[in-house]
């Protein structure tokens, strides 16, 4: 029969030669390959000591920024919660009282602000939606594994940027 393509291969089993039947040359070759790998550079990254290099725009754990005076920038407008495709962000708004000007930048602020890290897909849309440049995804931190589900709901205690002291400024 005429072959349909020119890729036809003859697969008849050949009688093995003596050296092939002895297997010893093949074993020596295999040992050579494994020995070559023995001296190769290792692919392992020793995780806690060294981390894989991340992209410049890598999106990790969220942070709620403060302004130059140390007051929280977030005004609880809710745009980030609206933008969030995974509905991971919830917040309650409150009114700033007199004497709290050093704590909150605008008259309205977030009393609670929670991100559920199990829902979050780290898309960065909250960062883009924010009109006050308050929420960012850091490029050097990530949400680590935990034992309990409720530990993944990050409140303001874990999200707000720590106050800068005068030394670190």
């Amino acid at each position, binding site marked *: 029969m005429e072959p349909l393509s020119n890729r036809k291969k003859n697969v008849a089993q050949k009688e093995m030669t003596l050296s092939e039947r002895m297997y010893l040359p093949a*074993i020596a070759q295999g040992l050579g390959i494994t*020995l070559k*790998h*023995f001296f*190769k*550079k290792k*692919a392992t990254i020793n995780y806690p000591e060294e981390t894989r290099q991340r992209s410049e725009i890598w999106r990790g754990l969220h942070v709620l920024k403060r302004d130059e005076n140390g007051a929280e920038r977030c005004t609880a407008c809710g745009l980030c919660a609206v933008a969030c495709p995974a509905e991971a962000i919830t917040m309650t708004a409150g009114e700033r009282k007199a004497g709290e000007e050093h704590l909150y930048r605008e008259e309205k602020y977030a009393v609670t602000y929670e991100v559920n890290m199990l829902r979050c897909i780290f898309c960065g849309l909250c960062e883009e939606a924010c009109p006050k440049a308050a929420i960012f995804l850091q490029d050097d931190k990530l949400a680590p594994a935990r034992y309990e589900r409720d530990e993944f709901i990050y409140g303001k205690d874990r999200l707000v940027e720590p106050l800068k002291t005068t030394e670190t400024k």
Partner: protein
Amino acid sequence: MDSVLLIYKGIYILAIFGISLLIATYSTYFERKIAAFIQDRVGPNRAGPFGLLQPLADAGKLFFKEEFIPARANKVLFILGPGIAMLVAAMSSAVIPFGDTLILGETTFDLIAIDVNIGVLYIFGVVSLGVYGLMIGGWASNNKFSLLGAIRAASQNISYELAMGLSLIAVLMLSGSLSLKVIAEQQAGFNWNIWYQPLGFLIFLICAFAETNRTPFDLPESEAELIGGYHTEYSSMKLGMYLFAEYINIFVASAVMATLYFGAYNFPFMENLRNAFDDPVLGNNVVTILGVGVMFAKIFAFIFFFMWVRWTLPRFRYDQLMKLGWNILIPLAILNILLTGGGILLYDYFTKG
């Protein structure tokens, strides 16, 4: 005089026992390290510097695991199994000459625990007892898979012991002695048996792999087919004893191969070094101490080879294993005996007229 010798032998036997345990312990570490390196990983590196405390951590873990004995198991035999495996493994290093003689003051110390004139037979007898440990353990577990593993271990050991013994006969024909010490002394300098017995060594090496149940002959514990083979039901330190016995067996097999084929403690130019010293006692002691180092270097090289092969070759199929043992290795070993005998006759004919 006798009491000095007795105390010395006691200390020496304890030292050899300790060294073989230490080497077995660290074999587990190096096995994992070598496996990792061959697979482009780094291996255990968390416990201590370079992970050197890993064997201690493993042993500690094994000791604290639950000692489980199956309800329908034969309790006495179940406990006896790993004990026999361990005892037999530790016994066999007694007749191996780890070094020549050490002269301290007036007395000469042989660096061998028991210098019996049937050393090779002793090793064979003790090593073939080792299969009882596996057999009893596998049978006492009252489990199909354990029993299958034990049967495989027994039939494999019996099959390969034949080829091993036949390949050894050629060496014994050359040496004319069954004492490992005499065989070692005959290979002085670079006059090693491997130059006369390359085929015999190859057969012995393959059989040593089969005798120690190492890949590619680890069918008794092939986890893909038999869960864990003869140690399926074992846990805690009883399992640890089985694993430990395997590593001690590797150490002993390496030592035997180094002694029989690779000149034991002998190294090239050792006579020149001995004569370079004015004091014959000092020369003898320096050469002996170097020789012990050389012996252990050879043993470690063999242990590395065992592990290297394990992480290179896949496992045999059972019928292939039997075919290799009975149809190929035994005829080859007999051929080797014939060739050696012919060679000895020709040599005598031309040298002695």
